[in-house]
């Protein structure tokens, strides 16, 4: 019998609308409150009912923050669940549930019958099956029953008393089933708890990014809904009143980006949050920001494309798009947060940077980062000081004054006695339309030289592992944790990992990191090694090996471990 004493991987799978996400929410928080480290991520279909959605919940004695293929315990809630996950089910996987629900097609030897639906019916309705499962898993993981019932009380606090009571009853009965499984030795889980972490926070990438935005002074969020980035605007809309910010659902993304630029012009701090398809509509507006030297913060939550692609799944396929979008030549900065904490910090920082250099700053995330959760100690918005770079104008004010630093002080209308004049045409120092070709050249230089000015603020890549290495593994954005865990498992000496939180412009140290390696291995969640192309273009260094994945799923620890092993042997 398998004994889990470090880390157990639980997968819940059912149809859309069966409440898998509710189970995920209650369970991850309850387990964390009990002192377990948790990580969860979901893969869902682009539909409202039916299909097969699954959620992975890792429960561990150590910090966990990455996706694994491995399934230790599978709870199938629907007939299609087992088939849906067949590639991830191994002989070690235990199916917990009812064959009458998930069918007989899987001939596992280690299935354990747990009457989730029967118990739910005894309580009153099949809809309580989820809560029974929460109870079973809480029992198996020796959660304090008081913590479990407190969690449920909080979660169902807005519901009617009867709903609350039935859920409490369902959980209690499930809990007893879980305890029985432990007691009669059918499952053995004994994972060390760390009581100190019970007060940590659990957030997903969407929430962290939204909190980073408001910490950075963001007070205007015009958006058009699009998976997987809708969560950012949703979160901010729910807190808009309390935070005194403005969240407006625009008629389309074209409107949203023009609102962002209009808002910055009037002194607000605005952010556009979208996905690749929405950003495609914003390309013209991005170019406007470039021309009028408007700050802008643009979040692109990447998903597989072209076109509609796989709306609810993940990819890192829009890096080159973000880099080259917009007609004409103008500077930009692209951040790609590696962790949920980074999503917070980099978004906060993006607002200062955009304001200071009057440029668009991108946050490039993906569905995997945005919709994954794990626990960590805290987020501190006071670490980055808010910088406002606009000035009070005088009657002689010129918006595009040529200055030594190439940054013209940014006035806003109604603040001071000057006039703030802005034109999407080429313009003179005042901002008025011009066809003076000498001014044109000077203005292009002025805009592009901002890229030189911000060199000192580029975030260096993070080296994980030994300073002296033969093999250098390179990744960017959301693959941070998964690569680290895979390398840890691999335990090979002479291998280091270089992770980029900023993918454009690249930090000047990048070249020396690359030159110190005998072999470089690039890991990217796309088909054409887009970051590899950026590295080659910016540094002239060719990368040796590539591990690419583009089926819409995130990399798993096992996959990276396997691929790295094949390269290293």
């Amino acid at each position, binding site marked *: 019998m398998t004994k889990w004493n470090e880390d157990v991987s639980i997968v819940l799978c059912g149809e859309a609308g069966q409440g898998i996400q509710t189970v995920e929410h209650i369970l991850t928080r309850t387990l964390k409150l009990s002192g377990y480290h948790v990580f969860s991520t979901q893969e869902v279909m682009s539909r409202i009912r039916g299909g097969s959605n699954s959620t992975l919940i890792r429960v561990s004695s150590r910090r966990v923050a990455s996706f694994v293929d491995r399934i230790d315990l599978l709870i199938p809630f629907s007939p299609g669940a087992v088939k849906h996950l067949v590639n991830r089910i191994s002989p070690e996987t235990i199916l917990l549930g009812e064959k009458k629900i998930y069918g007989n097609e899987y001939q596992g030897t280690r299935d354990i019958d747990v009457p989730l639906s029967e118990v739910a019916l005894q309580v009153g309705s099949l809809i309580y099956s989820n809560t029974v499962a929460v109870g079973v898993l809480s029992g198996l993981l020796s959660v304090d029953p008081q913590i479990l019932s407190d969690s449920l009380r909080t*979660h169902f606090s807005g519901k009617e008393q009867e709903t609350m009571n039935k859920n409490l009853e369902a959980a209690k009965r499930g809990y007893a089933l879980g305890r029985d499984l432990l007691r009669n030795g059918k499952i053995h889980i004994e994972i060390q708890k760390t009581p100190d972490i019970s007060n940590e926070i*659990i957030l997903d990438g969407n929430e962290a990014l939204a909190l980073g935005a408001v910490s950075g002074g963001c*007070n205007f969020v015009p958006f058009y809904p699009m998976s997987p980035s809708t969560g950012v605007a949703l979160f901010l809309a729910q807190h808009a009143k309390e935070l005194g910010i403005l969240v407006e659902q625009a*008629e389309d993304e074209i409107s949203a980006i023009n609102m962002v630029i*209009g808002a910055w012009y009037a002194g607000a701090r605005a952010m556009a949050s979208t996905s690749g398809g929405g950003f495609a509509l914003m390309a013209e507006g991005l170019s406007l920001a470039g021309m009028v030297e408007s700050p802008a913060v643009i979040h692109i939550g990447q998903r597989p494309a072209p076109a509609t692609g796989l709306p609810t799944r993940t990819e890192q396929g829009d890096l080159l798009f973000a880099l080259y979008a917009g007609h004409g030549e103008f500077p930009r900065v692209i951040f790609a947060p590696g962790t949920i904490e980074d999503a917070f910090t980099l978004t906060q920082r993006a607002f200062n940077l955009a304001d200071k250099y009057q440029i668009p700053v991108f946050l490039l995330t993906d569905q995997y980062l945005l919709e994954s959760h794990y626990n960590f100690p805290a987020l501190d918005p006071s670490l980055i000081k808010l910088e406002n770079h606009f000035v009070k104008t005088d009657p002689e004010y010129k918006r595009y004054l040529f200055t030594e630093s190439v940054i013209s002080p940014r006035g806003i209308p109604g603040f001071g006695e000057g*006039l703030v004049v802005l034109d999407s045409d080429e313009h003179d120092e005042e901002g008025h339309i011009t066809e003076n070709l000498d001014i044109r050249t000077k203005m292009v230089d002025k805009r592009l030289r901002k890229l030189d000015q911000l060199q000192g603020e580029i975030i260096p890549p993070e080296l994980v592992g030994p300073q002296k290495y033969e093999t250098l593994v390179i990744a960017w954005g959301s693959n941070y944790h998964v690569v680290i865990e895979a390398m840890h498992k691999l335990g090979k000496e002479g291998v280091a990992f270089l992770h980029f939180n900023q993918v454009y412009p690249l930090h000047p140290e990048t070249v020396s990191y690359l030159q110190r390696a005998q072999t470089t291995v690039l890991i990217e969640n796309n088909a054409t090694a887009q970051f590899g192309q950026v590295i080659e273009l910016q540094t002239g260094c060719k990368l040796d090996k590539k591990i690419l994945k583009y089926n819409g799923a995130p990399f798993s620890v096992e996959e990276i471990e396997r691929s790295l092993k094949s390269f290293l042997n």
Partner: protein
Amino acid sequence: MDKKLFDMKDLDIAWCPGCGNFAILTALKEALTELELKPEKLVMVSGIGQAAKAPHYFKCNFFNGLHGRSLPAAVAIKASNPQLTVIAESGDGCTYGEGGNHFVHTIRRNPDITHLVHNNMVYGLTKGQASPTSQHGFKTPVQTEGVFPESFNPLALAISLDASFVARAFAGDIEQTKHIIKKAVLHKGYALVDILQPCVTYNKLNTFKWFKENTANLEESHNPHDRMEAFRKATEGEKLPLGIFYLHPKPIFEEELVAYRENREPLYLRRPDLTKVVNIIDSKRGI
């Protein structure tokens, strides 16, 4: 009242001699002067086209953005700082063609902005193609057999969307145009003023003379609070009526925003309340 308050020196105006834009600019400047507005408290927002260049020719703050996109920027500017007077100004192609979707949804939002549309029924700056308001049968180098699609009726559309203020003026009557612009600026809520004007270079059908003969003031008896009547006036009759078609005072977008519920300060004066942010972060320690 300083009559020269909005005047600029050494202008190199890109409009053709005799263009209706000159009259609209005059009417607008006079209206602003009579309303005693200050250039530094006024933001003009325009798109692209000959009409969209108007803000370059008088003293004001302005945001001359992208073709068709003046309204989203105008809405955002007003919402970011409701203390500013915001006027969007552009042509018929920019507003009703490229920016059609924004036109519809800005009316629905009802921000307190004025919207001036120079309507000469043709694309001027791109040299004479049909615009959404070109008349059926209007021949151009592109529409060689004459325009086939139905002519866009901005007033009827605005009334159908229950716009807060809907008017039509004719650049040939500067006094009336000024009068309507003043009413529009003073109106609380979205105010559309569609301003008919001749394009002396590319529209040989809808000339100054044609507009003179084919427009007529709304009767004194017209009740602008009667929506059905306003719609009838916008869709019927041989001559194009001039005047204020429809008025419907109603709640204003920026005043309804939760951001201004407890705090009237424009956004540029605000700093994030990090205590509140920390409280939200702390709420993530529980369920």
